[in-house]
């Protein structure tokens, strides 16, 4: 709980002014850190969002005599709303497209601030912005400063709440491993929008304070360079770390003092600094060993009864039915009319030689590939045209051929990511830390710990997932998939790279999972494992179903042996 804030009680006008400025910047940086540091979307347009907040506040206060508080609120909405007009389409594009769109957006805002002279007073800007007042009493600069401090603290706490909640996990997943995020039911677009909306609103609020503090604002104040300052703050401090923007802004403000006579070169120096930091210290100040100790680690302090088996039960018991799937890629007919059925609570294996269409089928079921024709039914719902996160929300969990974990997050948090769609508190509730949020949080922790115990890794809950050996990473991924309490669990070659004892553990695990009612579809090459755990098998060969039935029937089928080991003679030509 390290929140260090030193109120500066000096008696110097200049120092107060600087401190107020610094806090305004810090506010924006905290918001930007959410978008760029956590959600991974670089924005070069936040200066414009501050400008929108500033102008809204300034014009409402000066021309319409609104109070500061209402104007600031309006500023927040204008910044957020205008930003969203740009972000709604732009966040569907790749990261660097988004960055350039924000750059263009920033330019557009500056242009329009100049163009709409009748509204914004054009180049000369808004002059003589009144000071905020409360109940008729005009606030002194010290009181404005203290109000700002309060805002910064509140925003920081709100951000911390969000980051430690499922939304924070979702954002990091969207940044580092979008496939894992989608498979866990996170809508990539929505989570980025959330980060954007919050950061834009915060920037708007900062703009309001900016306006009343400077009392004069012009379009030039909110140029591209201004946006880049905020990027610099979070890079210096450390992207994706809670205290990063705080530390970064403070460091950034000390800089001009240290520069002294080189002041006029400061933009150039900022550029060089940015480059050097990204190359040699990409983790920023918070990444230094000294500061790492300050970072809060999720301390597992919960007392749990491990006899609750609710965590392992699917939300609903559903069957999987695939009818007549067709898919071709660039001349290759990957699937040519495949059908499959898995009943809830059963383990069904999908085997076949390389290139027979097994992984394509898994991808079609989980929504990562859209079939050309055919149906994929989970229960009675056809999910074949849904996107991956939607399919996940319909009760499908999956693992991947190579475990897709978030290496820099703890094992516990990785598992909790899987439970994303089962927590119901909205972002709004999270920020306000309402009771529902705390019970959600507790439930998710308990469930994750139970699952880790189930797969045998509860002792490693605190460790970073990237440091686990391969076999254990695989188990964590299975735990994550189970955290969604899926009706259908898809396992993609889980045995690869596992030792004999790990294989035994895996077999026991899968059998236990299906006993709780989950339907399991496992794609595997390790025929020994298949023979041991599956109740039924489908064999694919070159995009078609070659055989299906019980394990015994299928393995005795000479066609199956031939498909695996080579055909003699000629068949039909393609």
């Amino acid at each position, binding site marked *: 709980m390290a929140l260090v804030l030193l109120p500066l009680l000096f008696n110097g006008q200049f120092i107060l002014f600087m401190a107020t400025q610094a806090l305004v910047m810090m506010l924006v940086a905290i918001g930007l850190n959410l978008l760029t540091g956590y959600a991974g979307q670089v924005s070069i347009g936040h200066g414009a969002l501050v400008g929108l907040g500033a102008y809204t506040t300034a014009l409402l206060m000066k021309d319409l005599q609104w109070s500061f508080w209402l104007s600031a609120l309006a500023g927040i909405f204008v910044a957020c709303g205008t930003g969203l007009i740009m972000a709604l389409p732009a966040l569907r594009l790749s990261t660097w497209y988004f960055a350039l769109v924000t750059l263009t957006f920033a330019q557009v805002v500056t242009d329009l601030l100049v163009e709409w002279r009748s509204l914004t007073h054009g180049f000369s800007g808004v002059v003589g912005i009144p000071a905020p007042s409360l109940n008729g009493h005009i606030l002194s600069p010290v009181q404005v400063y203290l109000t700002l401090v309060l805002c910064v603290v509140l925003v920081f706490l709100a951000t911390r709440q969000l980051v430690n909640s499922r939304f924070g996990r979702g954002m990091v997943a969207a940044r580092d491993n979008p496939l894992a995020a989608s498979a866990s039911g996170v809508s990539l677009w929505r989570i980025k929008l959330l980060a954007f909306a919050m950061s834009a609103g915060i920037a708007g609020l900062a703009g309001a304070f900016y306006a009343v503090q400077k009392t004069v604002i012009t379009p030039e104040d909110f140029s591209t360079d201004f946006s880049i300052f905020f990027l610099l703050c979070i890079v210096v401090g450390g992207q994706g770390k809670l205290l990063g923007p705080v530390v970064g802004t403070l460091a950034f403000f000390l800089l001009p003092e240290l520069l002294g006579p080189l002041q006029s070169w400061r933009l150039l120096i900022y550029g060089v600094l940015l480059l050097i930091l990204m190359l040699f210290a990409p983790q920023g100040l918070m990444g230094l060993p000294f500061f790492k100790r300050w970072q809060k680690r999720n301390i597992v302090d919960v007392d749990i009864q491990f006899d609750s088996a609710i965590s392992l039960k699917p939300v609903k018991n559903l069957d999987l039915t695939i009818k007549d799937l067709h898919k071709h890629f*660039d*001349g*290759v007919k990957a699937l040519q009319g495949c059908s499959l059925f898995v009943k809830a609570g059963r383990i069904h294996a999908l085997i076949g*030689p*390389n*290139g*027979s269409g097994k992984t394509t089928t898994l991808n079609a079921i989980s929504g990562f590939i859209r079939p050309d024709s055919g149906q994929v039914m989970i229960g009675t719902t056809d999910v074949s045209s849904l996107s991956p996160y939607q399919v996940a929300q319909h009760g499908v969990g999956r693992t991947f051929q190579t475990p897709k974990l978030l290496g820099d997050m703890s094992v516990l948090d990785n598992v909790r990511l899987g439970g994303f769609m089962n927590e119901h508190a909205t972002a709004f509730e999270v920020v306000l830390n309402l009771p529902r949020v705390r019970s959600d949080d507790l439930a998710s922790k308990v469930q994750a710990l139970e699952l880790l115990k189930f797969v045998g890794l509860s002792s490693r809950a605190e460790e970073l997932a990237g440091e*686990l*050996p*391969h076999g254990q*990473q695989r188990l964590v991924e299975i735990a994550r998939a189970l955290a969604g309490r899926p009706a259908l669990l898809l396992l993609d*070659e889980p*045995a*690869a*790279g596992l030792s004999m004892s790990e294989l035994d553990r895996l077999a026991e695990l899968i059998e236990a999972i299906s006993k709780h009612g989950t339907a399991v579809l496992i794609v595997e*090459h*390790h*025929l*020994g494992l298949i*023979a*041991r755990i599956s109740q039924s098998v489908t064999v694919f060969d*070159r*995009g078609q179903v070659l055989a299906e039935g019980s*394990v*015994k029937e299928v*393995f005795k089928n000479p066609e199956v*042996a031939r498909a*695996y*080991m*080579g*055909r*003699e*003679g*000629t*068949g*039909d*030509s*393609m």
Partner: protein
Amino acid sequence: MNMLLNVQDLHVGYGHVAVIQGISINIPEGGFVAIVGSNGSGKSTLLRALSGLLKPTAGSIVFGGLLISGETPSKIVRSGLLHVAEGRRLFKNQSVKDNLDLGLWGLRLSTVETAARYDRVYSLFPVLHERRDVRAGILSGGQQQMLALGQALMQQPRLLMLDEPSLGLAPTIIDQLFDAVVSLRQEGTTILLVEQMVERALQIADTAYVMQNGLIIGKGPAAELQGSELVRNAYLGSFEDTH
């Protein structure tokens, strides 16, 4: 007999996963060696280590008397070791002829020699000549495999490594392909064939190695390994144990 390729105690892994755990292989000049094994046995990983896409964690690879383990892929290609990767990794957005042109990358040849190389590939696979201006992406699977092979042939490799060329192809096409490989061998190219289709591979190779879980569990003349218990167990074995 000269060993063209000599692999000693090779270890290869990705991150935490040890895929190949100590393999030794010898391929004589002019020989035809097959490596068989079920999926996950590490066959593809072996080829990737030989062609330089992966760096071995231990062990040595000597090709034509030169130590190549740890070298860059382009150096390895220049020394005459060519890898036709699994899944027909072609440049699908470019034409058949473009793909063959790229096969000549890094070589400085006379016009006569260049023409001869194209002739060789076109006479081996006439369909490539017919469809030389067609975008590689729309060729059929078999034609793509032929193109991938042809592309490698442009370098006139001393050792040609093929990774599961039969993948997803119809039996007649596989026949054509393997016929072409055999004729290449007869012209003097040394062949290393990795295949999941055991019986086919053992029919045309001289010697074979059987891989399982990153290790060699058997080797010998191909004729002896055909239909043997050892091979059958490597693929379907564990089933027999549990039933």
